[in-house]
């Protein structure tokens, strides 16, 4: 049990950067970007190819980041300059990247077993390992928090919040969107690179469903930990990623569920997390409206309503 718990925390931290990436597009830019399904694999592929050819794991991870940035920038360009619908732009890039990923890897999967990765030196000590992962993720979070409070970061946030207003204040919303989508995919690719190094292989299908995993983490995190500020929201996303992994680990302990049911479980979690708050909100609104109306009627009545 403890082992599956530490395993869940480990995966949660590794996927947290991907979840933060999805948070940037989905929540900040209000742009559901499906590119991540492929750019996650791109990150894993670039890292695996470089490391298996004797490259430095750190350099490989940085290159994965760069490739993710580039992939996101193309999606952003398609959407803003090419005026392609956001969902379609993501899907097109996802398809195109599939071929690119195949070219990068040259074969459907690459093994990193018996190769030095970022984690080789600390893998033996679970506590140290988790601590280092947590510190890396927190540092990325703090950097992102800082960025989102700079002038450029404010413009990026306003782009998703009120694009017309920030344009009237002189920001080019095409540029801010491209920056946001690009940064998002960069983080997703880093996450892919880390997963490839942790699991010891990269394969063509490792990114399938990334967008849904990311959404699950974002939504769970927001529901449990709140989104009062940007600093709070990014923390919520990281914790959401961990909680999601714990939920999955628990679900897999149920007798009749199989590993292949994972995607269904994820979809159910996302649907639940999306639908339940909506239903609760509308029920609450109705009851408040009813109560207020009755109060107002009572108040009017006590003043001696004339007929």
């Amino acid at each position, binding site marked *: 049990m403890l082992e599956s718990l530490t395993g869940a925390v480990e995966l949660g931290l590794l996927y947290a950067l991907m979840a933060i990436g999805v948070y940037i597009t989905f929540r900040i830019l209000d742009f559901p970007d499906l590119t991540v399904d492929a750019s996650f694999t791109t990150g894993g592929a670039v890292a695996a190819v470089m490391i298996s050819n004797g490259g430095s794991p750190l350099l490989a991870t940085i290159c994965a980041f760069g490739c993710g940035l580039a992939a996101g920038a193309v999606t952003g360009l398609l959407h803003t300059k090419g005026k392609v619908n956001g969902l379609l732009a993501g899907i097109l890039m996802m398809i195109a990247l599939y071929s690119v990923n195949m070219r990068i890897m040259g074969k459907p999967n690459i093994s990193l077993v018996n190769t030095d990765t970022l984690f080789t030196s600390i893998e033996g000590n679970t506590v140290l390992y988790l601590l280092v992962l947590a510190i890396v993720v927190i540092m990325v979070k703090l950097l992102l928090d800082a*960025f989102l*409070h*700079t*002038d*450029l*970061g*404010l*413009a990026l*946030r*306003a782009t998703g*919040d*009120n694009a*017309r*207003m*920030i*344009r*009237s*204040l*002189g*920001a*080019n*919303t095409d540029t801010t969107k491209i920056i946001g989508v690009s940064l998002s995919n960069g983080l997703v690719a880093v996450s892919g690179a880390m997963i490839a190094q942790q699991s010891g292989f990269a394969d063509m299908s490792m990114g399938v469903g990334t967008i849904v995993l990311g959404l699950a983490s974002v939504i769970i995190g927001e529901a449990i930990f709140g989104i009062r500020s940007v600093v709070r929201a990014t923390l919520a996303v990281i914790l959401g990623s961990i909680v999601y992994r714990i939920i999955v680990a628990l679900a897999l302990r149920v007798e009749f569920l199989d590993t292949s049911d994972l995607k269904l479980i994820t979809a159910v979690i996302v649907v639940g997390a999306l639908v339940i708050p909506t239903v609760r909100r509308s029920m609450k609104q109705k009851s408040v409206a009813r109560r207020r109306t009755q109060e107002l009627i009572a108040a009017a009545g006590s003043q001696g309503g004339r007929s």
Partner: protein
Amino acid sequence: MLDISQVSKLFNPGTPDEKIALMNIQLKLEPGDFVTVIGSNGAGKSTLMNIISGVMKPDIGEVRIGGKAIHHLPEHMRSRWIGRVFQDPMAGTAPTMSIEENLSMAYKRGKARGFGWGANAAKRKLFREQLSRLGIRLEDRMSAKVGLLSGGERQALSLLMATFTQPQILLLDEHTAALDPARAELITDLTEEIVRDMSLTTLMVTHNMEQAIRLGNRLIMMDKGRIILDIPESRKRDLTVPQLLGEFERISGRQLADDRIVLG
């Protein structure tokens, strides 16, 4: 300061819905002019605002600010000269961001946005001073999200955001129309005060006839994409609402029709 010459704009050209939105508009504002704009539905008032701010581009004609031709520039590149308040109180502010963050974005109007902090101690001090001018105690709620403010408060903040960097042109597009009378009054008073104190060159579209006469030093009336009447300060002082409506009927041959018209 603002020089609009020969501007025309056609909507849906070449289709059955083709409509002349603006027809050969000539308008010149001197520095410090405060011009009110009235007109019937579809007269082209909002189109004129959109052409000046760059949301739309004219089919023919030129727009110059301080002698510089700007009609070919996109909206975000014109913002350094133009401050604008929209009719919809939701349009001028970002709801999930704080008052301070909204002001920080306005502070950077038309300047390059980089990795400098959006709000620092010096800027906060400036924002606090500016907010206190509004007299609605927003300076005590600088970290509150703008989405929590009332429509009137949001519009007051929008007005401040549009003006405190002293743009060369201020565009007000029926900015009190969506507010209840008491709040509309507050925003009108604030507008008058800010425009006077900063001697901003202002173009204000309004549906309120009394306001159009009382505010500003010049009044123009639009109909069917044209400016049909241009009343200078000397005549405007003694003008009454019935006279103004009479003028409209005399020139256009019909009554002034506007869903939201307020006579005063």
